[in-house]
């Protein structure tokens, strides 16, 4: 254990906080943090190394033996491990009693209870919320956030980051205003009918659009290939009038009217990701039947419960519609006599991208994630796959690949500092940085944040 180093590390972190907490985006200052190990991305690490940040972005990660750029402020953090901040694909922890997703919104073209496809989660963030500050203390630095995921089309998740104290408006917390559309499929009759109806409508809209576009294209091609034809009523003298019964050239198909903006149809167009939660095996079977009956299928990411191997296999065969999966990390221990292989491992071994949500959608659930990641390694998943499930894979689902969830050049300087291997479960979280600003540091002396709490 590193207790003998703890005070030294933390005093360095305190010194560091004096530098970086005052470093806003406008003060471009190269800072180089030396650590025993820097995990740049799953499967890629440098040990020991320097993480060099330029304001709010990662400038480089280099080996400790290399020279840091001139002028960079160098801080040796000691025997610590730096990882990218974790990324949650879905977090609904919110202040108070948000009820977004219930009831029709005036601007929603679909309307109806439970359909909030026009709702953008960022609109529900309030300046006085403290939840985004708390989440920053857990090691997560980006969340696909929804205030309420309970409606059948719950709305468009926004990617938020923890509060750094530099925000002037709630919008300043946003990394991406609309990341994906979130929907749920349940087995209740009205629910099934509502989802099936909306999926069919959206598929039909897009199919009609494509057909109209195709006809337009064909007409344009045809017009370009043939010479201009004489009009029927302009026959020269002496020429027989064309048979009046002969139909004139059919009029060109009218240009397709663009459909009103609709996040669900966008998913069928491939312009927006659809993340669909399915809670039971029966629901999965039913959903697949519905999708197979659609003239066009969206590509989607599924949020799944714990599943038996045969259902996992069924889904592995549907790469045509399933882009990836989101699961909570957990050992399936239904049997008293054996440890079942968890679904996450089967999906990963089958070639699907797997992202993890915290086991419980709460502050505590986010803070406890390392324990459950360690469990998944224990269950046989590779450390790289497990780490990817909370970094690069959810970053991709949020449309922020290369921007969050890794420490590649140009990525957000959002990272966590641990006193050991984060996949061991007991490594202490020493500090968290969001876009180069320290939002959390562990104070060994009093177990409280040193200095002023971040507002």
């Amino acid at each position, binding site marked *: *254990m590193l*207790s003998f180093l703890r005070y030294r590390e933390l005093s360095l972190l305190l010194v560091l906080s004096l530098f970086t907490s005052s470093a806003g985006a406008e003060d471009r200052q190269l800072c180089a943090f030396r650590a025993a190990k820097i995990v740049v991305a799953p499967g890629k690490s440098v040990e020991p190394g320097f993480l060099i940040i330029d304001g709010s972005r990662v400038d480089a990660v280099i080996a400790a033996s290399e020279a840091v750029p001139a002028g960079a402020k160098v801080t040796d953090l000691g025997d610590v491990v730096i990882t990218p901040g974790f990324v949650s694909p879905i977090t609904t922890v919110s202040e108070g009693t948000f009820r977004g997703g219930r009831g029709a919104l005036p601007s929603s073209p679909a309307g109806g209870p439970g359909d909030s496809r026009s709702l953008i989660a960022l609109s529900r963030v309030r300046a006085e919320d*403290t939840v985004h*500050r*708390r989440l920053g*203390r*857990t090691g997560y630095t980006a969340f696909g956030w929804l205030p309420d995921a309970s409606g059948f089309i719950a709305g468009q998740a926004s990617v938020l980051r923890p509060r750094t104290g530099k925000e002037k408006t709630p919008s300043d917390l946003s990394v991406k205003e609309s990341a994906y559309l979130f929907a749920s499929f349940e087995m209740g009759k009205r629910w099934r009918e509502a989802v099936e109806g909306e999926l069919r409508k959206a598929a039909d809209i897009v199919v009609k659009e494509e057909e109209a576009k195709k006809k337009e294209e064909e007409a344009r091609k045809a017009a370009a290939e043939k010479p201009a034809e004489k009009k029927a009523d302009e026959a020269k003298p002496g020429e027989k009038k064309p048979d009046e019964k002969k139909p004139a050239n059919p009029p060109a198909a009218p240009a397709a009217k663009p459909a009103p903006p609709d996040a669900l149809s966008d998913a069928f167009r491939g312009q927006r990701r659809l993340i669909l939660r399915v809670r039971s095996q029966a629901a999965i079977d039913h959903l697949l039947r519905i999708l197979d009956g659609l003239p066009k299928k969206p590509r989607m990411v599924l949020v799944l419960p714990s599943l038996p191997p045969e259902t996992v296999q069924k889904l592995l065969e549907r790469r045509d519609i399933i882009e990836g999966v989101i699961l909570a990390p957990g*050992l399936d*221990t239904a049997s*008293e*006599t*054996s*440890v079942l292989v968890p679904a996450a491992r089967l999906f990963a071994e089958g070639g699907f991208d797997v992202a993890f949500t915290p086991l419980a959608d709460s*502050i*505590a659930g986010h*803070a*406890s994630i*390392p*324990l459950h990641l*360690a*469990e998944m*390694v*224990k269950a046989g998943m590779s450390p790289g796959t497990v780490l990817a499930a909370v970094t690069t894979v959810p970053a991709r689902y949020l449309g922020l690949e290369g921007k969050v969830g890794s420490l590649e050049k140009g990525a957000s300087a959002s990272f966590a500092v641990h006193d050991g*291997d984060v*996949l*061991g*479960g*007991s*490594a*202490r*979280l020493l500090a968290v940085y969001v876009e180069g600003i320290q939002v*959390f540091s*562990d*104070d*060994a002396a*009093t*177990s*409280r*944040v040193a200095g002023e*709490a*971040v507002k």
Partner: protein
Amino acid sequence: MRPARREGVPITILLLSAALLLPAGSGNAADPGARGEANRAPAALPQKLALLHGKVVTVTKGIHIGGAVLLSEGRIEKVIPDPGPDFRPEGYEVIDATGLWVLPGFVDLHSHIGGSDINDMVYPVNPGLRVLDNIIPDNPLLRKAQAGGVTTILFIPGSGTNMSGFGALMKTGGKTLEEVLIRFPGALKIAQGGNPERRGGDLGLGRMGMNWLIRNALLEGKKYTEAWDAYEAKKTGKPPEMNPRLEYFRGLFHREYPVVVHTQGYQLVHATLRILHDELGLWVVIDHGEFDGGELAAEAAKRGVMVMNGPRQFRFDGEWGAFVGLARRWYDGGVKDVGVNTDAGVIPGEELFYQAAMAIRFGLDEEVALRGITINGAKAVGIEKRVGSIEEGKDADIVLWTGSPFDVRNHVILTIVNGRTVYDTRREPRRF
């Protein structure tokens, strides 16, 4: 105001209980055997095992790399720090622990997995109830706990009432009641707030009512104890009438076993210290102790009251904007022998080591955490001479791990309870 429910016991139950409590051949209801079983030696077993070449983590006597632990007749016969690579004791079945960690079995002082139904909630206080009548040895949850290295638990009633009955100290391995039982009563279980709130209209919805019910029952028990003490000291001629509802209070007030208290938050922990320890002089163990209960760490330490923190291992302090490690808070405040529990099955019993890992993550020193799931729990309930560390003469409760239990990627290979193998992943599928 509705009158409090009369707490009487029908005569048939009194007679039946008296018959059950009287040991065979004894005509004296005040015999120690009538109040419960004293510490029982484990049943003698023929297995002689030698665990060789592992990293022996004794907890109390250092770490021996490549050490040897010899088990015989259900006890730790010998611990040899440096036996050498060629050591082969004659007459022992050898288990090669090369590359493995050899630890004592863990002790969980807040567990509900020893048997069945843990709450009878008709009355708000139930000192006559006992889990002894509920124990199911070798049940599936105990078998899972073995896979997490837990070998001793305090099986207690739930927190559905303010005083839910008497718990038992027992092993997780063993096929019969006699094999598993360490001591009954293990402890009295009191819950001071939260779960036991009476919402049916009778007394005990609020803290005043709940604490009154607890005090009242204990004072009644104290009076009963004093009456029997006076009789036994020949200060009175006639024995008091034996009351099975109050009988176990006698051992409690004689400090033969403690009261373990489901208590958390400053207010309730303060009431625990003030009423149970200061006023009534009981041997007190704080279970849970979460939220801001740790603010009273110095007070608990001053009184020698031990704390088994959990299952929450942290809370978010809104004022400071930080997570506070709760076990660490107790430790920093002066409770140096802090422990950790699971409240199994709230947290599965096999995850006791996860609890310790979380405590470490939130600031507790690793060595303290290890003591917190071994010797500290044993000490808290007075069985430290039997379990909680690898020392000669103690029970042969040993667990082999693939590595440090605080790297939760590691797992148990072998669990031995009372010298008998109860879980062996070399021969059976892993349970955890």
